[in-house]
């Protein structure tokens, strides 16, 4: 930025989106409190700067879309909160297994189950020790402020790409929702590193194919190899990242306090109070939770007599601290859970109690012996050396080229490997693979094709083109993201009936409804093949399966689902045909349908192209290959009638059409090379992001900070009074005056029902926590706010009430040491002609009474706050001045 003194008022949510934009990431989101602002901001910003934003149908789909986009080399961000992150664990585990980079932010909230939306740290186990299934870790970053959230989210993209791993950033609602003023320049973009991704499945142009998968079935040792390689990678990450901690007052600390995230901010404030009472406490704040900074904790504990771990949970990180210290120090724990933020005073009490226990008594006899345990050389991690097992010999076919004078009538397609398949004799998958591969060959699309593989019998890839392995049922989510990332590629999702119509039904219907731009080949064999022949959503009456031995009972489990009937209702589907593998003629039709779908895709016809293939499962149906073909002809195709259901794609003019969007329109001709989307510069991002920039100035000297040097203010009222606007105005003015600020508004369902409040801090130094338990000043704009917060004002503080609405001041007893001012704020606004300007009157009275800010700073901020509604500037200035005048009279 040209003006380096500029500051931006940034919310935690905005910091995350901005970091993703600078990193060049796409965002697949689903709204969840307390981070709904993320999808809202990304929806507005990302299309303007050439990034993909898509609101997915579910948390599951969003995470799997991220998986798909990561598989083709795109940086991705997923932001969610605890229950949503639980759903995302599927994709995170797959990405860990497939070694794909991605950044996942969890704004933790109170749990378990639905819990509430309060700030919490109850997902430490999930992030650090648990997560999804399998033997994996993800680096876990734990910022504690908005500024740190911005920097760490940016760094998370670098880590993810460098180590090809998902990275978690864990915050909570109080960070996501709070605002800070941050110095942000174009140089922020320099924090972003770029990595080549030769492993990405972008289409095998001029190279061997890439397969993105976490699947290792044959030989069995291959999976152990993968795990050992992962472990070696994790050891490397631990070594490279080292301990990332922040220490405060540790030099002489007898009592070591360990806390992370927003808890650390509150802990720091309490430690300062304890120091004032002569308790030598110090804070160690881990910035990374995995790798866990065990060595630093041991180091810091050497001088300490005891350790106190503070968390917003019932005790999770405390286990790791105890492991790190190996019993050498007594580790105490204090936490609040269920979305409650502990108050400074509570923490101080805990510090005092631990101090009494340990400092008062004599030094324990074995203290020195136990201190030896803190020597970090005891704890060096043994590296597991991966052992390379011999790979299975590749069986190559020996089919011969034609002799002179011969032509090949039907040969093996290039788009398939020369490998024997694992399919049962007569399996339709084999036929379909051949047919698809021949169609790709004929259209010369092999290098441009990316195939999404399902979970099911066809999980093992035989394609000789780039493939990505999806989680069960999520093929459509992956293909959605891949087609939005690589819109010049031929994307084909190959899915079975259980995958598509059962576990993945939501993804299927939504991708079809959106008209995603890819080809879907739906293999319908009326049975779960790979798991051994259980009933599928398309199993038909009369066909026995292992879970319905006499065939589907319609009265119990309903009729089989006719996917073509469903698809034909959806506008996003441009081509829909049902064909069958029931003999040479049927297979010809299969080939024609698939070729047509691929042709549309290659020509850039937007929308979903679907071919449903009725396919035999000889073993599952307990029939010979020939019998199964007859069964399809005579029975299955009566249940699922064959034919073309839809073909609304226009004939594409080759290489001509201008890019358009929407189903059935020509989007773009295929390009030989993939044009990576340009990543917007920091300037472009800042211009488009609708940020609140403020330039501090030294001219605002008309203040008196003696009474409230670092005011902590709570402003409260009901919805419609403009409480947020009032908070923002005070913030603007404070930043203009060159001071630091934090704002934590009430959010989510706390806002429903009409109450609204904001916690503001103004300071000249760093602000440890935006959370306020005992404010210096409370502005109560109505009776409920007065009753709720009136008694929280500290001694010597100020309680400013809107006497027009606080009608029963005797409802609560206010402490005598608190100054109470009743000002007719709403009445003044009414007299000025608009009750809704009461917030500006309140600002005037507040500043006039406290002198904590120069009134001119507020006057200059009003035009900025009302930049979008210039007509309101003059009346609001008048309202502010009226408030100021009233304060002058009061004093």
């Amino acid at each position, binding site marked *: 930025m040209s003006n380096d003194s500029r500051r931006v008022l940034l919310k935690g949510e905005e910091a995350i989106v901005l970091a993703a934009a600078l990193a060049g990431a796409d965002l697949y989101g689903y709204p969840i409190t307390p981070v709904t602002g993320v999808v809202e901001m990304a929806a507005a910003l990302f299309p303007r700067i050439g990034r993909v934003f898509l609101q997915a149908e579910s948390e599951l789909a969003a995470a799997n879309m991220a998986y798909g986009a990561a598989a083709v080399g795109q940086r991705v961000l997923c932001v969610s909160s605890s229950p949503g992150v639980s759903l995302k664990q599927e994709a995170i585990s797959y990405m860990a297994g497939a070694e794909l980079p991605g950044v996942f932010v969890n704004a933790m909230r109170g749990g378990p189950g639905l819990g509430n939306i309060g700030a919490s740290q109850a997902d430490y186990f999930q992030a650090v020790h648990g997560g999804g299934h399998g033997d994996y870790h993800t680096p876990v970053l734990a910022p504690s402020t908005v500024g740190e959230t911005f920097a760490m989210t940016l760094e998370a993209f670098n880590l993810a790409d460098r180590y090809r791993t998902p990275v978690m950033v864990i915050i909570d609602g109080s960070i996501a929702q709070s605002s800070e003023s941050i110095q942000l320049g174009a140089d922020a973009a320099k924090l972003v590193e770029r990595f080549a991704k030769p492993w990405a499945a972008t289409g*095998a142009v*001029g190279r*061997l*194919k890439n397969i993105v998968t976490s699947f290792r079935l044959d030989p069995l040792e291959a999976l152990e190899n993968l795990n050992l390689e992962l472990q070696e990678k994790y050891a490397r990450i631990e070594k490279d990242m080292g301990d990332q901690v922040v220490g405060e007052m540790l030099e002489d600390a007898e009592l070591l306090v360990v806390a992370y995230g927003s808890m650390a901010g509150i802990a720091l404030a309490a430690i300062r109070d304890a120091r004032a009472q002569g308790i030598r406490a110090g804070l160690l704040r881990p910035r990374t939770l995995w790798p866990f900074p065990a060595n630093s904790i041991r180091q810091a504990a050497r001088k300490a007599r005891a350790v106190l771990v503070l968390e917003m949970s019932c005790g999770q990180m405390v286990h790791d601290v105890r492991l790190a210290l190996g019993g050498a120090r007594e580790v105490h724990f204090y936490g609040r859970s269920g979305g409650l933020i502990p108050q400074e005073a509570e923490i101080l009490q805990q510090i005092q109690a631990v101090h009494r226990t340990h400092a008062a008594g004599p030094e324990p006899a074995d203290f020195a012996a136990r201190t030896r345990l803190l020597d970090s050389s005891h704890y060096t991690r043994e590296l597991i050396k991966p052992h390379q097992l011999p790979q299975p010999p590749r*069986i*190559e*076919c*020996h*089919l*011969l*080229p*034609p*002799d002179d*004078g*011969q*032509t*090949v*009538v*039907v*040969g*093996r*397609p*290039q788009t*398939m*490997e*020369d490998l*024997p*398949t694992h*399919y*049962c*004799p*007569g*399996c*339709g*998958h*084999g*036929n379909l*693979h*051949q047919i698809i591969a021949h169609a790709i060959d004929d259209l010369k699309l*092999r*290098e441009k094709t990316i195939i999404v593989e399902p979970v099911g019998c066809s999980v093992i890839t035989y394609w*000789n083109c780039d493939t990505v392995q999806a989680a069960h049922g999520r093929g459509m989510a992956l293909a959605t993201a891949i087609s939005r990332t690589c819109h010049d590629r031929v994307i084909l999702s190959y899915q079975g009936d259980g995958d598509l119509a059962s576990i993945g039904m939501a993804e299927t219907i939504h991708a079809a409804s959106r008209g995603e731009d890819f080809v879907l080949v739906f293999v319908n064999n009326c049975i779960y093949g790979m798991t051994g022949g259980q009933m599928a959503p398309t199993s038909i009456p009369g066909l026995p399966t292992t879970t319905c031995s006499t065939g589907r009972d319609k009265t119990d489990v309903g009729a089989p689902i006719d996917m073509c009937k469903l698809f034909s209702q959806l506008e996003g589907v441009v081509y829909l045909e049902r064909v069958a593998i029931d*003999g*040479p003629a049927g*297979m*010809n039709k299969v080939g024609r349908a698939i070729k047509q779908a691929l042709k549309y895709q290659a020509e850039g016809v937007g929308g979903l192209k679907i071919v449903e293939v009725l396919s035999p499962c*000889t073993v599952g149906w307990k029939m*010979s*290959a*020939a019998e199964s*073909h007859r069964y399809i002809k005579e029975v299955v195709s009566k249940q699922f009638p064959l034919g073309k259901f839809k073909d609304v794609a226009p004939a594409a003019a080759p290489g001509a059409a201008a890019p358009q969007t929407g189903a059935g329109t020509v989007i773009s001709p295929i390009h030989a090379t993939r044009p990576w989307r340009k990543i917007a510069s920091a300037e472009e991002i800042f211009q488009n992001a609708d940020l609140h920039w403020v330039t501090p100035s030294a001219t605002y000297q008309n203040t008196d900070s003696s009474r409230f040097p670092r005011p902590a203010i709570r402003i409260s009222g009901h919805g419609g009074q403009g409480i947020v606007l009032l908070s923002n105005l005070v913030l603007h003015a404070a930043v203009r005056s060159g001071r630091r600020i934090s704002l934590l508004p009430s959010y989510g369902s706390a806002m429903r029902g009409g109450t609204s409040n904001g916690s503001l801090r103004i300071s000249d130094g760093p602000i440890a926590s935006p959370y306020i338990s005992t404010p210096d000043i409370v502005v109560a704009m109505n009776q409920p706010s007065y009753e709720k917060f009136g008694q929280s004002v500290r001694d010597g503080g100020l309680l400013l009430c809107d006497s027009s609405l606080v009608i029963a001041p005797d409802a609560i007893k206010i402490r005598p040491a608190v100054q109470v001012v009743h000002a007719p704020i709403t009445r003044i606004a009414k007299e000025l002609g608009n009750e809704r300007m009461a917030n500006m009157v309140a600002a005037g009275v507040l500043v006039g009474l406290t002198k904590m800010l120069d009134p001119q700073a507020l006057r200059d901020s009003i035009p900025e706050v009302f930049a979008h509604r210039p007509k309101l500037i003059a009346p609001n200035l008048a309202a502010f001045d009226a408030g100021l005048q009233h304060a002058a009279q009061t004093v």
Partner: protein
Amino acid sequence: MSNSQANASWKDKAAGQVQVEPLLCKSCGLCAEYCPQDLMKPANDIPSDSRSGPIINPAGHVVYEIYDPNNKCTGCGICASVCPEGAVVVYRTKPAGKQAAMPATSSASRKEANRE
């Protein structure tokens, strides 16, 4: 061994030649089911002097092969197109003066395709 040598006894007369990769055949019998001339047989039903490969492949499947003593194969390609394993390749004697309709697709050419 070339495919013409494999089928030396009737190569010169039949319009089509069929070669089955024994490693890939799973003995599903679809080629036999759909052959219009009824020429595809399990190898153990073919006289030993007309067999070109093993009766049973390493995976334990009885390999199917063409048995065409009367030169009836027209080279229609149905056996290859219905083979789920892609184990069958059908060659047809080229009419004079015409180029090959489809390129050879051996392992070697596939590797070349990868290198492109």
